[in-house]
């Protein structure tokens, strides 16, 4: 797993309930805006279906490193915070490290404890979507595109 994500997980895990909420809110506030060219491409293909809120993800390769972009509405701070956390933890990582991120990341961050089991349902979908897109983009690049 990428070191940056590892550090974020550690920080969340060592925090108490209110600190975890505050950290997630900070992540939500600090989600960088989408570059204008991606803003124009917010379509069904880039929407995470598993989330009830409109969440969009974009994956590119810059050299041999993963570049992630995402957007989620301010009215859905939980998912916005989680997208922001993943972007910060995974940007610049090697694709194989992204693919190694454990599927139970939400649990490992202690977010299930804070948010409750029913609420974290869409979050796992965001991570899966990122891994799927990273695998696809990395494979295309490997094939010489």
């Amino acid at each position, binding site marked *: 797993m990428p070191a940056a994500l590892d550090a974020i997980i550690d920080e969340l895990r060592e925090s108490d309930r209110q600190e975890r*909420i*505050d950290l*997630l*809110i900070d992540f*939500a506030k600090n989600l960088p805006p989408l570059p204008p060219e991606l803003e124009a491409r917010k379509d069904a293909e880039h929407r995470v279906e*598993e989330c009830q809120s409109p969440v969009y993800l974009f994956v590119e390769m810059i050299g041999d490193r993963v570049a992630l972009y995402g957007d989620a509405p301010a*009215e*859905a*701070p*939980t*998912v916005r*915070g989680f997208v922001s956390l993943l972007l910060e933890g995974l940007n610049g990582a090697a694709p194989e490290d992204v693919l190694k991120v454990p599927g139970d990341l939400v649990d490992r961050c202690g977010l299930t404890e*804070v*948010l*409750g*089991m*029913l*609420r974290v*349902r*869409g979050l*796992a*979908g965001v991570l*899966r979507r990122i891994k799927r897109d990273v695998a696809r983009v990395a494979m295309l690049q490997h094939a010489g595109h």
Partner: protein
Amino acid sequence: MGEAYAHPEALVSTQWVQDHLDDPKVRIVESDEDLLLYDLGHVPGAVRIDWQGDLQDQVVRDYINADRFAELCSKSGISSDTTVVFYGDKSNWWACYAFWAFTLFGHKNLKIMNGGRKLWIDESRPLTRETPAYPRTDYKVAGGDEAAIRAFRDDVLAHMKAGGKLIDVRSPKEFTGEMQHMEDYPQEGALRAGHIPGAKSVPWSRAVDDEGKFKSVPELKTIFEKEAGLKPADDVVAYCRIGERSSLTWFVLTYLLGYPRVRNYDGSWTEWGNLVRAPIERGPGA
């Protein structure tokens, strides 16, 4: 357009709430789908009541018991005669759910803030991050008439067999059975997709406008009576996937249109879609 809601006292405006922020007889309660919203900023003086963490038993699939409800109210500064005003995100889904849950315990004087959290913010009304603390009360649970507003699976089966009216408020694709919503929704999963035979599809969101406010009586009558074929005297059961969105429809039919007999089937599709020998129907329905 001027036709009044059947029970207009159950709905208050954002201005009414702002005028009653310091009213000791009124307690404002925020109930959201997204837990973090309250922490980001809420109506000054509002307490948070979470449908999952506060109102549901985490072991039994049921609501908390009367003792725990009394404790929740006592620590939130709510007395038996306090007027409780709910508001929240997603056009007041969870606010309606909390309203319904409070009704189960027999609390009177419940209201919904029309337009919810979004309208309050859109109107640039005050927000705070400060969590209020109120003097403890000694709440006494009145005890509600659960059978009047809550349907269990056997009630629903009997209702269905008798040709009773059923309103399915999930998305159209869940209704037809095209979408099962299994993947990544392990806690909301159902083994089969479709709807309860005879149910009409009226997605919950149709009852609210773009501002998040409830539609007018004529608009609601068009949706529920002309299109879905309900009549005011009907015995109606509403359901969704876990029983939260259908409490919004329960609120609309009971308080805005004045139907005397509406029950929320909170077991909903996660129960029905998994029940052995429970009949289901696929496709667009009758």
